[in-house]
C-alpha cells in the first residue's frame, strides 16, 4: 500500500499480541485504518496516547520497529457501475487481474435505515427452484438463510440462485470459501455469461480469517449503492455466515472479552443483526434481499449461531437429500419463508396458496404412509397413491435442479393431483378445481 509523503511514520511499537499491536500516537480517530509494515490494520482501542491496532492478517513477524502509517479514514469502497462483473478481496481490491475501480469512495458500515422510511416488502423474487418459489417464496427486502450441514451442496445452490434469480444485481460475499469453491463460483459465473450483473467479494481459507469480517460490509456497501443510487433490485448472497461468526469469536477472544453461549461473543445477536437488517425495501423502488448460508454442525439448530440467526432472519431454508429420488431437495416441512404470504396469490396466480398447502399436506400423508410401511403395517390404496405422488412431487418440483416458472410449477402440481387423486380427496376450493383441474386427456 502506498504512503503519502507528508504522512507521519511511527516506528515504535510498544506491545504486540497475536492479533494486535499497540503504539504511542496522537490525533488518531477511532476505527481509523493504518498500515503496519504493509499490513492493513484498524484502530480498536485508544487509551490516551496508546493506540491499539488490530492487524487483519495477524502479527506474525511484526517487529517493534515496524513502520506504522495512519490513513485518516475508515474502510472504504469505491462504488460505481464498474464494480459489475468483478471479483474483489475483503478490502475491496480486485483479485481478477483487472484494473482498479474508479468511482466515489464510500465508507463501509453505513448507518441504519430509519424504520419509518422502510416499505413493507411486497415484490416477489423468483429463483426457478420450486422448493423456494412455490413453497417458500422470497420477497424483495427479505433476509433468509439456508441452514445446511457442511456436506450439503449449498454452494451449488447459491450459485444456481445467483444465476437464475430475477434481480438487477447479484452480489456474492464469500467468507472462508475454499479455493476450490472460489474457482467453482468464478467458473460458473464466467461460463453462464451473467457476469455483467454479478459482483463478488471473496475471502478464501488461504486468507487470514479476521479479514472476512469485512466481507459482508463490503458486499452491502456495494448493494446499497445499486439499491439507493440506481434504484435496482439487489440480491446479496452471503456464504458462510458460520465462518463469519467464528471470526468474530476469534477477535473477541483476542481482545480478552468474556464469551457467552457456545464461546460466541455476547454481542453476536447485534453483530449479525447489523448485517441482516441491511435487507430492506426502499421507498423509491430499490431493494436489498439477503440469502445467506449458515452451516450447522450435525443439524443442531440450537447452537448460538443458527439460533440467533433464526431470531433475526425472516424464515430459513433447509436442504435435504431425498432418498426416493437420490437428489437434493428443499425440505418442505422445516423450511419457512415468513414473508411469503405477502406475495402468494397477490403477485402470483390465485391458486398458489391452495396448491402449495395441498401438495405439502399430501407429502406429509406420504411420510406417514412410509412410517406405517416401515413398522410393518398394511398400506391402504390411498397410502400407496400418496407415496407415488410424493416421488413425482420430489422429482418434478422439489429437486433443486428443476428450473421452471411459477405458473408452470402450479400446473405441474395440478397435473400430479389429477394423476393420483380424486377431486374430493385434495380438498381444494371448488371454484379453483373447476378452473384448473386438468381435463381427462391431459393426464393421459
Amino acid at each position: 500500500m502506498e504512503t503519502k509523503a507528508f504522512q507521519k511514520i511511527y516506528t515504535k511499537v510498544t506491545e504486540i499480541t497475536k492479533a494486535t499491536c499497540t503504539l504511542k500516537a496522537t490525533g488518531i480517530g477511532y476505527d481509523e485504518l493504518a498500515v503496519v509494515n504493509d499490513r492493513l490494520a484498524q484502530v480498536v482501542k485508544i487509551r490516551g496516547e496508546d493506540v491499539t491496532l488490530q492487524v487483519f492478517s495477524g502479527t506474525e513477524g511484526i517487529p517493534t520497529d515496524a513502520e506504522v502509517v495512519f490513513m485518516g479514514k475508515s474502510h472504504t469502497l469505491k462504488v460505481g457501475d464498474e464494480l459489475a462483473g468483478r471479483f474483489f478481496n475483503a478490502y475491496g481490491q480486485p483479485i481478477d487481474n483487472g484494473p482498479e475501480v474508479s468511482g466515489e469512495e464510500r465508507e463501509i458500515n453505513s448507518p441504519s435505515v430509519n424504520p419509518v422510511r422502510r416499505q413493507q416488502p411486497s415484490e416477489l423474487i423468483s429463483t426457478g427452484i420450486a422448493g423456494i418459489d412455490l413453497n417458500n417464496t422470497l420477497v424483495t427486502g427479505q433476509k433468509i438463510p439456508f441452514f445446511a450441514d457442511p456436506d450439503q451442496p449449498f454452494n451449488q445452490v447459491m450459485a444456481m440462485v445467483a444465476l437464475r434469480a430475477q434481480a438487477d444485481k447479484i452480489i456474492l460475499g464469500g467468507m472462508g470459501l475454499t479455493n476450490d469453491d472460489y474457482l467453482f463460483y468464478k467458473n460458473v459465473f464466467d461460463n453462464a455469461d451473467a457476469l455483467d450483473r454479478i459482483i463478488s467479494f471473496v475471502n478464501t481459507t488461504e486468507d487470514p480469517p479476521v479479514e472476512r469480517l469485512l466481507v459482508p460490509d463490503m458486499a452491502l456497501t456495494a448493494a446499497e449503492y445499486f439499491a439507493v443510487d440506481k434504484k435496482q433490485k439487489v440480491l446479496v448472497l452471503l456464504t458462510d455466515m458460520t465462518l463469519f461468526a467464528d471470526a468474530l469469536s476469534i477477535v473477541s477472544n483476542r481482545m480478552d472479552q468474556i464469551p457467552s453461549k457456545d464461546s460466541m461473543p455476547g454481542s453476536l445477536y447485534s453483530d449479525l443483526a447489523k448485517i441482516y437488517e441491511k435487507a430492506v425495501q426502499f421507498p423509491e423502488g430499490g431493494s436489498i434481499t439477503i440469502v445467506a448460508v449458515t452451516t450447522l454442525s450435525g443439524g443442531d439448530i440450537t447452537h448460538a449461531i443458527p439460533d440467533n440467526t433464526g431470531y433475526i432472519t425472516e424464515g430459513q431454508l433447509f436442504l435435504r437429500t431425498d432418498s426416493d429420488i437420490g437428489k437434493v431437495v428443499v425440505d418442505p416441512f422445516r423450511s419457512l419463508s415468513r414473508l411469503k404470504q405477502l406475495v402468494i396469490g397477490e403477485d402470483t396466480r390465485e391458486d398458489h396458496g391452495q396448491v402449495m398447502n395441498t401438495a405439502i399436506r399430501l407429502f406429509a400423508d406420504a411420510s406417514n404412509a412410509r412410517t406405517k410401511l416401515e413398522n410393518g403395517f398394511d398400506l391402504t390404496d390411498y397410502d400407496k397413491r400418496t407415496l407415488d405422488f410424493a416421488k413425482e412431487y420430489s422429482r418434478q418440483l422439489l429437486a433443486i435442479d428443476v428450473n421452471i416458472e411459477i405458473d408452470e410449477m402450479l400446473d405441474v402440481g395440478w397435473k400430479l393431483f389429477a394423476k393420483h387423486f380424486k377431486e374430493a380427496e385434495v380438498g381444494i376450493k371448488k371454484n379453483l378445481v373447476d378452473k384448473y383441474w386438468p381435463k381427462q386427456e391431459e393426464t393421459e
Partner: protein
Amino acid sequence: MSTTGKVSAIIANLVYVEVDGPVGQNEICYIKLGDVNLMAEVIKVIGKYAYVQVFESTSGLKINDTVEFTGHMLEVSLGPGILERNYDGLQNDLDQMDGIFLKRGEYTEALNQEKEYEFTPIASEGDQVSAGAWLGEVKENWVSHKIMVPFKLTGEYTIKSLAKEGSYKVTDTMAILTDKEGQEITVTMIQKWPVKRPIKSYKEKPRPFKLLETGVRTIDSLNPIVEGGTGFIPGPFGSGKTVLQHALSRQAEADIIVIAACGERANEVVEIFKEFPELEDPRTGRKLIERTTIIANTSNMPVAAREASVYTAMTISEYYRSMGLRVMMLADSTSRWAQALREMSNRMEELPGPDAFPMDLSSIISNFYARAGYVYLNNGATGSVTFIGTVSPAGGNLKEPVTENTKKVARCFYALSQQRADSKRYPAIDPIDSYSKYIEYDEFQEYLNENISQNWIDNILKAKNILIRGKEASEQINILGDDGVPIDYHINFWKSEIIDFAILQQDAFDKIDSATPIERQEYMFNKVLNICDFDFEFKNFEEVAGYFKRVINALKQMNYSEYKSENFKKHEKELGQILEERKAEPVSN
C-alpha cells in the same frame, strides 16, 4: 457553569472522559465530533474519569475531543403530542428525521412545539397542590390529557395563576406555582423526567385486583390478567406472537397502548407502522394508532439506545397512568434489552454472571417489572400500567437467565406452544403450562365474585383439570391404541377437546369471534363445563369422535354468531338436541 471534559480513551462505544468538575452517575453528556454531537450516558466514575457509553457509533472520535455534561440523567419530554408518534429509544421522533438513513448525532424535539391545544382548567388559583396534581386538561386525539404539576417538585405549592380556557402551545406558561418561601415556579405543558426513575406521584399502590378484559378467551377465561398486572410470553420464532400482541392491543380494556419494539426485526416494526393506522379501534370506531405510541429501536439500531428504549416506554406509560388512565405496555423483546446490558457490562470488564449476563440482571428485571401496577392517585382517581413482555429464549430453552429471572417477577405466563401453532390451534397459548398467579389473590377473587361471577375461579380450576385429564387420556390412547383403552378415556379426551375448540381456540380474523366480551365468555364457559359434567353413553369408541365433533361444531357455530341472536339460539337448540341423543344426565359429584 456546567462540567466539561476531554476524551481520554475509546473502546468501541465505551469512552473515558477526563472531567473538570462534578459529574453524576447516569448523567447525560454530549461528545463533540466535528459538527455533530454524540449523546452519551455516564455509567461509571473513577477519580477524575467518567466512563460514558455513547448511544451511537464512535467511528472517527479522537483523544481530547471535547465533552459537555448536561447536569441531568436521560430524560424524556412528557406532554400532549406523544400519542400517534413513532419514537426511537431516546424519544427522537422518527418521522421528523430527514432522509432514508438515520444520521449520527441527529436529535429531534419529541413534541410538536407549534401545535395548539384547547386547554380547560381543572384546579383553581389559590389551590394547594403537589407533584402530579391535575391543573387542567387538553384533548389529545380523543384522550383527555391532564396537565400536571411537574413530578420533580417536592412538597406543597400554591397555584398563583392558572391559564384561562383557550388555545395554547406546549411551551406556553400554563400556571405559576409558589412554594412556601414564595419562590415562583413556571409550569408549561411539557415536563421532563429521568427514564430510569419510576414516577411515584400517587398515593397508594395496592395489589392489583381488577380483571383486565382482553376479549381473548384463553386469557380471560383460563389465565386472567389484571389491570396493572404483569405477564410474559416466551415466543419461539413462528408461534404467533405478533398476532397475539395485535389482538391484545386492539381489544384489551386499556385507554393507551405503548409498544416498545426493542431489538427485533425492522420488517416487523414496519408491519406495525403500516397496520396500526389501518386497524379500527373497536371501542371508539376511530383508528387504533390514535391512542398508541410506538418506541422502535430495531436490532440494527444502536445497542445502548436499545437499553434506554424500554425505560422510555415505561416512563411514558407511567405518565399516562398519572392522568387516571389505563395503560397497556407491550415490550418485544426483553431478551434483546438484556443482551444490550450484557454487551455493555462486557465492555466494562465486569465479572460476568450466568451466560455472561451482568450479575445484577435479576434485580434490573425485577425493578423494571415493579414499575407496572395499579395506583390510587392523590386525588382519588385510579390508573394502571399493565405490562406484558416477550422473551426470546436462546435455543427455545426456558432455562436461561432472562426467562428464569422474568419468571420470578411476572405474575402471568403465557406459554406459546410450537406444537399448537403447528396444528393451527390459535392462539397458540398452552393452557396447561401457562399460569396466572392472580387467581390466587383474595382481592381478585372477591372482585370476580362481586362483578362477574361467583364461580369463575372454580371454573378455571375445573377446566384445567379436564384439560390435564384429556392430555393424559390422549397419551394413553397413543400408547395403547384406540381399542386398548376403556371408552372413558376417549370421552375424557374429547371433553378436553371441547374446551380446546370452543373456548381456547379463537379466530383472530373473524369479526365476531375475535373479541369475546366477558359476559359472553361466562355464558359459554358455563355451558361447556356443563357439557363436561354430563355422563355420555357409547357402545364403542368409534362412535365417540364423530359425536363430539358434532357437539364442537354446534359450539363453534355459536361462537361465530352474534351473541343471543336468532342464529345463536338456533345453534344452541341444535346443541341441546345433540346432547339429548346420548341421554345425557348430570354426574352427581
